[in-house]
Structure formats: C-alpha cells, structure tokens
C-alpha cells in the first residue's frame, strides 16, 4: 500500500467538516483501485463506471449522514461496497441470459466487436489491457481470490472467512492464479520485472 502525507481518516474527517478538496483527494487516491476491482468482476467498462459512481455515492451519503464508522479504514470499507455492488450486478446479469441474434451471435459480441476495433486502433500495444484480459480469463475461483487479495487488500484469513474456504485453499488458488498469469505473460511476451527488490 502506498503511503500518503495525509491519512485517509484525516481526509474523511476534513470532508465531514465540509472540505470538498479532501473528498477529491480521497477519490483520486483510490479511484483506480476501486474501479479495477469492479471491472475485473463485471468485465464491462460502462457497467463498471456506473457501479463506481454508485459506490462513491453510497459512501458520500454514509459519511455526510454521519453513519461512517470511524474505527474502520476507508479503503477496505469502500472496496467492500464496490465488491458487493459488483457481485450483485454479476448475479443479476446471470439471471438474464444474453440476447442471441438471428445468426446465433450474441448482441454483446457485436458490441464487443465494435469496442475492440476502437480499442485496437488506439491501444493495441497496451500490455495493461492484455494483462487485464489475462486476469479475465482466469477460472472464477482464482480470479476471485486474486481480486480480493491484490486489489481489495484482504488478508488470506479474511478471504477464507468471506468465501467459506480454508486459508490453504485460498492460498492455493492465489498460487495457481499467479502461476497461470506468469505463464500467459511469458506466452504473450508481457515482460515482468526481472529485478529483485527488497519488499
């Protein structure tokens, strides 16, 4: 986790006192982590942006109405809201099967195609896009643990409690997720840091 000059809890306190600048700092500090967490679950940019908005609106209301628990930490709290909204959306989407066109292709495939061509024209070489695709391709159980541990910063103990599996199983899934990603990164020539840094 990055270290900041002003802590999240200080920014929340300032925001409660009416400082919009404090909120802007909080939002800019965590927007990418929260957005990535949502995106990796719903796998759709537009839906992820809607849910990001919904997440922060919930947070704003909770803080402004004085219902924010001072004892907790801001980031895990907002990530939990984001995760719950993303999972709810994911389940809802599963209840409504994809619309299939006359030729048998999915409406969403058509949209995906349009999106892909814009994307490929602009950021074809972007390895970050490829890496997110590789994360998308992981089996659900592995991706879930990876998102929870890496982006939501939950401990393996917390993941175990939340997913109903043992710590060893959660660790094993994380291991497979990292090994799979490394293999695929090699396969697609996505270089990863070869240097050893102290932790």
């Amino acid at each position, binding site marked *: 986790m990055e270290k900041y000059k002003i802590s999240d809890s200080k920014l929340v306190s300032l925001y409660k006192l*009416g400082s*919009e600048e404090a*909120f*802007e700092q909080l*939002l*800019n500090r965590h*927007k*990418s*982590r929260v*957005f*990535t967490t949502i*995106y990796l679950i719903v796998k759709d940019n537009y839906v*992820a*942006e809607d849910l*990001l*908005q919904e997440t*922060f*609106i919930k947070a*704003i*209301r909770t803080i*402004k109405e004085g219902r924010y628990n001072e004892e907790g930490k801001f980031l895990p709290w907002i990530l939990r809201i984001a995760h719950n909204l993303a999972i709810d959306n994911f389940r809802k989407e599963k209840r409504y099967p994809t619309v299939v066109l006359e030729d048998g292709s999915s409406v969403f495939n058509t949209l995906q195609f349009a999106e892909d061509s814009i994307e490929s024209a602009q950021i074809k070489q972007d390895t*970050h896009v490829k*890496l*997110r695709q590789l*994360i998308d391709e992981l089996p659900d159980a592995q991706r879930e643990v*990876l998102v929870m*541990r*890496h*982006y939501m910063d939950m*401990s*393996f103990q917390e993941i175990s409690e939340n997913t109903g599996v043992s710590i*060893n199983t959660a*660790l*094993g899934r*994380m*291991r497979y997720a*990292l*090994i799979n*990603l*490394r293999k695929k*990164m090699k396969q697609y020539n*996505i270089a*990863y*840091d*070869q*240097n*050893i*840094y102290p*932790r």
Partner: protein
Amino acid sequence: MIRTFTQDDVIRYVYHETSEEESQEIEKAMLCDAELQIMYKEISGVKNRLDEAQKAPSDMVINNILNFSKSLNLLSKK
C-alpha cells in the same frame, strides 16, 4: 538450520503476511537457495505487473461523483 519454504510461503511473504521472524528466515534462505530466489522474483514480478494493470475510470464519471458531493453540500447549506 535453514527452513525449507514453499511457494505459498513466498506468496505470503510478498503480500506481507509473514511474521517478522518468518520474513527474516525467508530472506536468509533466499541468499543461499537459488530456486527460492527465482520463485520470489517471479511472484513479485507478477505482483508488480498487477499494480501497473490498474484501470482508471473516465474523467466524466469522476466529475459526476464530485458534482454529486458538492450538490449535497449546497443542499445542506440552504
């Protein structure tokens, strides 16, 4: 005696979930265990990449959120 460490131990180490004592043992073991060193290098390499792969939302969404917050402020001041 130097303990043998598994990939799971290295993952816990990379994600700061080992005790101070355990971390020191892993660091010591890495000095003389090339395989463990490679394991660490690979896992922390993927971890660094995952950090870089974070996706940013559009400015429009960020502005919507900021405007919503400001609008609530205005309402409460009325």
